[in-house]
């Protein structure tokens, strides 16, 4: 039997199981929105937790066999939620329409908490804005990383915090025991310590810290649905944001930058520079324990999978590479032009949240044209970059309103990928 398809023989410190009483409650906050819980709690199809199929052994008959399959329920919920998200998107969009980059007042407010190796959030508040460094390096790195990200938002994207209105930036460190992950829970970034064998603490990388806040930024602009191609675009945007904040902090040009997400998070002995390369997706690591970086750099190698929400961390390699190619063509500091185009693309809120690669690509070309002019070097760079990953963009000039500032004033929310 070889069932370990991607990452065999990973050693890991087993975690003590949480008490069973924790079962009924969520282990940490924000994974499923309350309205979904309510909707499904009322639904007769909410009960099954398994797909139907013949029971192979008599012992197995107790888990809701014969009820509608999990996938059916999930798909229904997905459609419902997608519709909800579109509605919400449209309701909120007009307030920020035509504004693009925002300049609203606000000040940096940071709060770092310590989960003290539990999985309870937010944990105990250990350092807030203006307080001196503490003895715990993870706390200080998270604090500093949030500060770097805030400065990037303020100075380059000209907005206060991730919501454009000075939202407090919150982080929790020491989540779980040897927890091999960092995530955005909808309100805060959360960092595990890593198991020490494969992963170090996830706070050591500024690009990872900023990546998580990139998800937060999207949540407050175009909250690309976290599944399939829109999910891969969500991941890609977070990667782009992550590396740009790091490049800005280091003052690196396109040529000087590593274009690696997560430098330093692999433990000693692991063969890898980080978890992803925007310059050369698929080359970030190649290790006997980890396996090889599975990212495609071109549509030809697009990965179809049910795992990872449809491969959102895998296929993000394609738009990542397109961003790199744009930045490479334009030179200088990547945040100045390529970053501006990508940020405008989500900040304008023209795209539907379930946009695919092609729709997103088209919008970046349109934004480049509106910012820099028709057939400008910038527009050509963006177009060529997408062509380089197998996506050809054709803009149809439907009317004369596509000029300055990029908006055609059709007044409809949700946008359309089809212009």
């Amino acid at each position, binding site marked *: 039997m070889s069932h370990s398809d991607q990452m065999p023989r990973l050693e890991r410190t087993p975690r003590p199981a949480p008490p069973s009483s924790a079962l009924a409650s969520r282990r940490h906050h924000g994974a499923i929105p309350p309205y979904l819980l309510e909707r499904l*709690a009322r639904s007769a199809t909410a009960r099954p937790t398994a797909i139907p199929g013949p029971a192979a052994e008599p012992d197995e008959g107790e*888990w809701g066999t014969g009820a509608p399959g999990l996938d059916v329920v999930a798909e229904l919920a997905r459609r419902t939620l997608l519709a909800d998200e579109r509605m919400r998107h449209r309701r909120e969009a007009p307030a920020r329409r035509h504004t693009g980059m925002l300049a609203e007042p606000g000040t940096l407010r940071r709060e770092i908490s310590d989960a003290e190796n539990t999985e309870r959030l937010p944990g105990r508040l250990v350092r807030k804005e203006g307080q001196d460094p503490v003895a715990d390096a993870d706390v200080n790195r998270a604090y500093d990383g949030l500060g770097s990200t805030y400065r990037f938002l303020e100075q380059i994207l000209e907005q206060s915090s991730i919501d454009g209105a000075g939202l407090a930036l919150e982080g929790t460190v020491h989540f779980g025991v040897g927890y091999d992950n960092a995530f955005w829970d909808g309100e805060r970034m959360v960092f595990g310590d890593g198991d020490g064998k494969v992963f170090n603490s996830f706070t050591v990388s500024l690009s990872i810290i900023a990546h998580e806040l990139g998800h937060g930024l999207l949540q407050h602009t175009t909250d690309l649905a976290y599944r399939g191609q829109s999910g891969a675009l969500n991941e890609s945007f977070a990667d782009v944001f992550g590396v740009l904040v790091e490049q800005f902090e280091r003052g690196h040009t396109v040529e000087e930058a590593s274009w690696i997400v997560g430098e330093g998070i692999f433990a000693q002995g692991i063969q890898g520079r980080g978890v992803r390369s925007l310059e050369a997706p698929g080359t970030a690591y190649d290790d006997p324990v980890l396996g090889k970086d599975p990212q495609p750099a071109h549509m030809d190698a697009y990965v179809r999978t049910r795992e990872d929400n449809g491969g959102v961390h895998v296929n993000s390699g394609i738009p990542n590479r397109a961003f790199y190619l744009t930045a490479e063509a334009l030179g200088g500091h990547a945040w100045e032009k390529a970053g501006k185009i990508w940020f405008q693309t989500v900040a304008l809120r023209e795209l539907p949240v379930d946009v695919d690669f092609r729709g997103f690509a088209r919008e970046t070309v349109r934004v480049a044209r509106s910012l820099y002019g028709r057939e400008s070097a910038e527009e050509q760079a963006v177009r060529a970059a997408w062509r380089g990953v197998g996506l050809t963009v054709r803009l149809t000039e439907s009317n004369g309103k596509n000029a300055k500032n990029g908006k055609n004033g059709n007044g409809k929310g949700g946008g359309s990928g089809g212009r």
Partner: protein
Amino acid sequence: MRIQVTRSGGVAGISRTGAVEFRLRSDGPDAEWAALYRAARDEGEQLSSEDGAAPAGGLGGAPSRARDAFQWTLRLGSRRLEIPDSYLSGALRELAEKVLAEGQG
């Protein structure tokens, strides 16, 4: 009984899969697995009978505001469950982690 577990997603995007096979009625080394499986299965029933918890246990890929969270796919015999990391707990989590840790190769 055959159990296969995949943990995908996470900010690193590195998937891990493990599988074990054991006899449900056994006095041998399989007895520990069988006991853990039964406890996990009981918790699965609890999951499906409690309001709110049920969809959580069953909706691994549903949209939420969480990003970079692990996604678990558990195959217990002929059943397939998708569970977000934030909802996998108790004996079910213990079983899933044990399969990942020990069910390699």
